C-alpha cells in the first residue's frame, strides 16, 4: 500500500487538520469530527447537515460553506459517522429554523442519522431528513438494502443549501431535496479497486482487462464485471442503465465524476461521450460538472449522474455557492 499518510489510524484526523489549515472559512473540530462554517449559525436559517464515511473527498466537508452545507460529519474511512457527530453539528449550527439531514441510503448512515435525529428532536430541535438513493446499479427491490446514495448527494446538498440560504422553511427544503433525488440517477464503473488504509490491499481483484460495473462509493465490488471497452462503450452501458430507469429528455444536469484516481483528461473523454449520448436521446444538457466530486479513495473509474432540471431547480443550482470544492457567484 502506497499512500501519502502518516499512519493508517490517523488518516481522518490528519486530513481534517489539513482542511483546517487550508480553509479558514471552515471551523474544523478534529476531536469531535465535525466541520462547520466558521461564520457560525445564521438565525432563522435552516441548517443543512450531512455526513458519511471518509474516503469520498471532497464529499462532504468540501461542501461546507455559503449556499451549501452548514456542517459535515466525517466518519472513519468508509464508515458512517456516529450519532454524536450529527447531534453536535446540529446543536452548533441550528439557527432556530430546524436542521435538515442529507443522508445517503446505506444501512449505517440511515441508522446513525436516525439516532441523531431522535436525540436532536428530544432537545426540541426540529429535524427533517432527505434520503438520497440515486444509484440505478442497485435493483430497487425488497431483496436489497435499497438503492445507494451516490452522485446525487452533491446535487441535493447544493440545491437544498441554496434554498436554505433564502430562508425557506424546513419542510419545503426537505421536499425540494426529495425532488432533486427523485429526478436524479447515477451509475458507476471502476477500472481498478481501491485500497483502504486499514485493509492495505485492494477491496476486490480485477484482471488487467476487466472493469467492474455498477460500483458504489465504498470500494465494494459492483454487480458484474466485463471486459475493458472503449470509453464510448462504457458510457453507453452506464447511460443505458440510467435511461432505462428514468427516460432522459428535456433539460438535464450532468455530472461526470472521477473516483479519486482518475485523471481529468479521461473524465473529459467520458464527458464527450455522455454529451453525445444525451444529444442522441434528444435531451438538452444545460448544466455540467466534470471532476472529482464524490470519490472512493484511489479508485480509477467514473460515475455519471443525470438530473432532470426544471426552471426552479436550475435557478437554485445557479445560486452562489462558496465552499472549498464547489464555488461560483462569489
Amino acid at each position, binding site marked *: 500500500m502506497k499512500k501519502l499518510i502518516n499512519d493508517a489510524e490517523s488518516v481522518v484526523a490528519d486530513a481534517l487538520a489539513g482542511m483546517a489549515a487550508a480553509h479558514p472559512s471552515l471551523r474544523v473540530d478534529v476531536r469531535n469530527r465535525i466541520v462547520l462554517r466558521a461564520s457560525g449559525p445564521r438565525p432563522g436559517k435552516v441548517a443543512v447537515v450531512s455526513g458519511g*464515511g471518509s474516503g469520498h473527498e471532497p464529499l462532504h466537508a468540501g461542501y461546507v460553506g455559503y449556499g451549501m452545507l452548514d456542517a459535515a460529519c466525517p466518519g472513519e474511512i468508509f464508515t458512517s459517522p*456516529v450519532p454524536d457527530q450529527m447531534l453536535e453539528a446540529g446543536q452548533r449550527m441550528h439557527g432556530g429554523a430546524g436542521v435538515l439531514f442529507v443522508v445517503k441510503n446505506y444501512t449505517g448512515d440511515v441508522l446513525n442519522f436516525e439516532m441523531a435525529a431522535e436525540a436532536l428532536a428530544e432537545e426540541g430541535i426540529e429535524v427533517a431528513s432527505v434520503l438520497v438513493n440515486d444509484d440505478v*446499479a442497485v*435493483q430497487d427491490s425488497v431483496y436489497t*438494502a435499497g438503492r445507494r446514495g451516490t452522485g446525487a448527494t452533491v446535487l441535493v446538498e447544493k440545491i437544498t443549501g441554496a434554498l436554505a440560504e433564502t430562508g425557506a422553511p424546513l419542510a419545503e427544503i426537505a421536499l425540494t431535496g426529495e425532488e432533486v433525488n427523485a429526478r436524479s440517477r447515477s451509475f458507476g464503473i471502476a477500472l481498478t479497486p481501491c485500497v*483502504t488504509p486499514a485493509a492495505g490491499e485492494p477491496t476486490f481483484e480485477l484482471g488487467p482487462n476487466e472493469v467492474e460495473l455498477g460500483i*458504489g462509493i*465504498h470500494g465494494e*465490488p459492483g454487480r458484474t464485471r466485463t471486459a475493458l471497452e472503449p470509453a464510448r462503450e462504457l458510457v453507453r452501458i452506464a447511460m443505458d442503465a440510467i435511461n432505462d430507469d428514468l427516460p432522459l429528455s428535456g433539460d438535464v444536469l450532468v455530472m461526470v465524476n472521477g473516483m479519486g484516481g482518475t485523471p481529468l483528461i479521461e473524465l473529459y473523454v467520458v464527458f464527450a461521450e455522455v454529451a453525445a449520448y444525451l444529444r442522441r436521446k434528444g435531451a438538452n444538457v444545460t448544466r455540467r460538472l466534470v471532476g472529482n466530486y464524490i470519490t472512493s479513495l484511489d479508485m480509477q473509474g467514473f460515475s455519471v449522474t443525470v438530473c432532470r432540471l426544471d426552471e426552479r431547480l436550475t435557478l437554485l443550482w445557479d445560486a452562489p455557492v462558496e465552499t472549498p470544492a464547489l464555488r461560483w457567484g462569489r
Partner: protein
Amino acid sequence: MDTRFFAAWLEECARVVHEQREYLTRLDAAIGDADHGNNLDRGFTGIRQALAENAPKTPGSLLALAGTTLVRKVGGASGPLYGSALRQMGKALGDAETVGLAELTGALETGLQTVRRLGGAEVGDKTMVDALAPACVALRRAVEEGVKPQEALSRAADAADKGAKDTVSMQARKGRASYLGPRSIGHQDPGATSTALILAALRDVAVSWAEPGAAGP
C-alpha cells in the same frame, strides 16, 4: 452471573475482536467495504476505556454503558445495531445484581428483536441475525431443558458459529452485501462472524468461571 462476569465477557470480546480484526476486515472486503474489523475493534476498545473510567454496579447498567459506547464509537451499520442491542439487553436486565440463565436468555432475545426492528433483517438475509437468532433458539431450548449455564452458552456459541458458517451459501438481502446480488454467495458474512465470536467469548468466560477454583457464573 454478576457484573464482574459481564465485564469479563466484554473484556474477552475486546481481546478476540482485536485479535480477529484483520480477519473480519477481510471478510468485509469480499462483500462489503473492508471496515468491520476496525469498526468493532474501535468499539470494544472504547468499551474497555469506558469501563476503566466508570465501573457500573449492575450487569444491566454495564451492558447499557457498553451499548452506548458502541453507538458512540463504531458508526457504520454494526455500531447502531450492536450498540442498541446491548443497550436494550441492559435495560431488560433491570437493576438485578446477578443474572440467571433465563434472564440472560430473555435479554439476548431482546437484543435480537432490537437488531431485527432497526435493521429489518430476517433469518436468511445474510446478516448478524443469522448467527444471533439460532443462538437465541439454542439458549431458549437449553433453558427449557434445564442444562447448566456453561453448557447452555456453549450450545448458543455453537449455534451462532454454525449460523455464521451457513451464511456462506446465502444471498445477502440486507446491508452493503445485498448490492452484490448473487455475487454475495460464497462468502461468510462479517457481522454474523463477529456475532459468533462474541458468543464464543461468552461461552469461554462462562466455562472459565465455572472451573474449579474460579468464581462460578
